[in-house]
């Protein structure tokens, strides 16, 4: 028993090192005073971070990515709320196939989605821009939003909405006063997940972005220049720190939501 336990423990540790070593290396080389990404370390510097502040193209890319990710997360969460409510509350002809088609992008290869979108957009004659990227990202994020919001709606007792209507509220005020606050944790999760997916999505952005690249596309374009590598490392460090902060905030709100409504914690991000 003892030796078996030790074996699993060693495996777990090795596995975690394999997963996280590259991420730990990011900040190490981001602060390393050398253009060559290799040990031994040359010394501490914050030059690479300062250099980031001087690249206008990077700033444009970050701005583009933020606009696209925020728009995508809001749009796909709204669509997700509608679809999840429809699929959990109503029965209508063709419901199965319709929901199936909405969920399909979850398993379609992204490159196929990207190429076909490109062909269609060019065929219609729509110019490539941030909007076309948002379109593509909404397409792939909506299934995630629906999946998250479906479970939020399913755990919501239907008679709560009926009770509010019975007590004199309209359908809309019932949604605002009862449904919305109770599915709030799901909405935050959905916003966060689609924001994250959109922010680091590369293939669709690469195909559909016009003259304004997103952050991943910009990073990919910079990898051709070895001297730019340390500043990419610095950028990566900032992104990792941001993701962790975002995750902690989201988890805080999720737990608070559950505690306030007295539900059972069914496990979250952390």
């Amino acid at each position: 028993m003892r030796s078996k336990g030790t074996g699993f423990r060693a495996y777990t540790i090795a596995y975690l090192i394999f997963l996280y070593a590259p991420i730990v290396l990011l900040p190490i080389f981001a602060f390393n005073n050398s253009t060559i990404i290799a040990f031994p370390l040359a010394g501490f510097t914050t030059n690479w971070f300062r250099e980031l502040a001087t690249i206008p193209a990077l700033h444009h890319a970050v701005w583009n990515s933020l606009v696209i990710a925020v728009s995508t997360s809001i749009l796909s969460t709204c669509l997700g709320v509608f679809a999840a409510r429809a699929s959990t509350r109503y029965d209508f002809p063709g419901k199965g196939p319709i929901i199936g088609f909405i969920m399909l992008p979850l398993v379609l290869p992204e490159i196929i989605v990207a190429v076909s979108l490109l062909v269609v957009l060019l065929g219609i004659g729509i110019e490539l821009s941030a909007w076309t990227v948002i379109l593509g990202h909404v397409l792939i994020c909506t299934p995630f939003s629906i999946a998250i919001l479906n479970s939020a709606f399913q755990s919501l007792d239907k008679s709560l909405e009926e009770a509010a209507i019975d007590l004199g509220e309209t359908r809309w005020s019932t949604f605002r006063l009862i449904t919305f606050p109770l599915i709030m944790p799901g909405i935050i999760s959905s916003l966060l997940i689609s924001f994250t997916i959109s922010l680091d999505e590369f293939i669709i952005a690469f195909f559909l972005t016009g003259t304004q690249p997103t952050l991943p596309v910009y990073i990919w374009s910079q990898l051709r220049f070895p001297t730019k590598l340390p500043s990419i490392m610095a950028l990566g460090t900032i992104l990792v720190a941001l993701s962790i902060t975002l995750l902690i905030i989201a988890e805080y709100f999720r737990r608070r939501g559950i505690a306030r409504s007295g539900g059972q914690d069914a496990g979250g991000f952390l």
Partner: protein
Amino acid sequence: MKPIIQIRDVHKYYGDYHALRGINVDIGEGEFFSLLGPSGCGKTTLLRTIAGFEDLSQGTIHIDGRLMEGVPPNKRPTNMVFQSYAIFPHLTVAENVGFGLRRDPRTPAQKAAAVEEALEMVGLKGYGGRAAHALSGGQRQRVALARALILKPRVLLLDEPLSALDKKLREQMQSELRRLQRQVGITFILVTHDQEEALIMSDRIAVMFEGQIAQLAPPQELYRRPVTRQVAEFIGVMNFLPASVATVNGARIDVEVAGLGTVELAAEQCPGGARSGKGSVGFRPETLTILFEGETPRGRVAEGTVEEVTYYGDMTYYGVVPDGVDVPLTISMRNLVGRRVLERGERTRVAWDPAALVLFC
């Protein structure tokens, strides 16, 4: 009785499924009315059509003289206590109870007083600040009641409100609901599958099977004079013996009962209507009496063998097979001081009264 709700020829279809099949009933002002039936009989559907959550496929419902067609639930003079109580988990007890007052023109202080008054009425004085999700089942029930009653509806609809509570709490809430109904004086319509609960609480009971009202009567009449065997079997325990109706002669009916001989019944003992031919008679366990040594019978006597003895403490239930029949009859006897409990296999005499029989043709 002045009717507050008039239901006329109401039908409800779900696709091909015929959930309500021609419901006609008037429910009186200030009445405690129960819809009783097994699950799937349409009782909850009927309640939800009154509340406005289900459309009618056919027929009309008037509440307080007003036709309810096209009137949404939030515009009806009814409020509902849901089976799951539907307490809003993100609000406090006071916010839950005062939820329906949002559109009320009164000042916040007046509304708070109304909430406190409603909480006091259901025995939850001082609970207003608590989080709703931290309440016990019985407390949730009371919050749901206060929340519905604060709007002073003309009719309170209760959808199996006690089914989630344990036995002790349920019995306590039954008498409390009855007291509350007398206190506020409004019409209560209770949906339940528990016949005992319906008998205890109601002024009148509608027994429903398969989307139809099988019988509509006050509790005593329902228990003593069920119109069909189905109703009789659903309400309490009833013994049945095969019988044949010899003659129907105005107010008198001559019946030949297996194992008991010929009896003459009054017309009112056949509430479902009498005609000659095969049928059955039914009688309740407490209308039969086991005769112990030296006791003289009132009414008629049959002899039989004790086949089963179930001892309940205050009562003993016997299964006695009368001579000439092969079905055991259930007989309930109070365990009085000095009265012994019979053993299985003993011979015994059973006294019975023809006036207690109900005839089903």
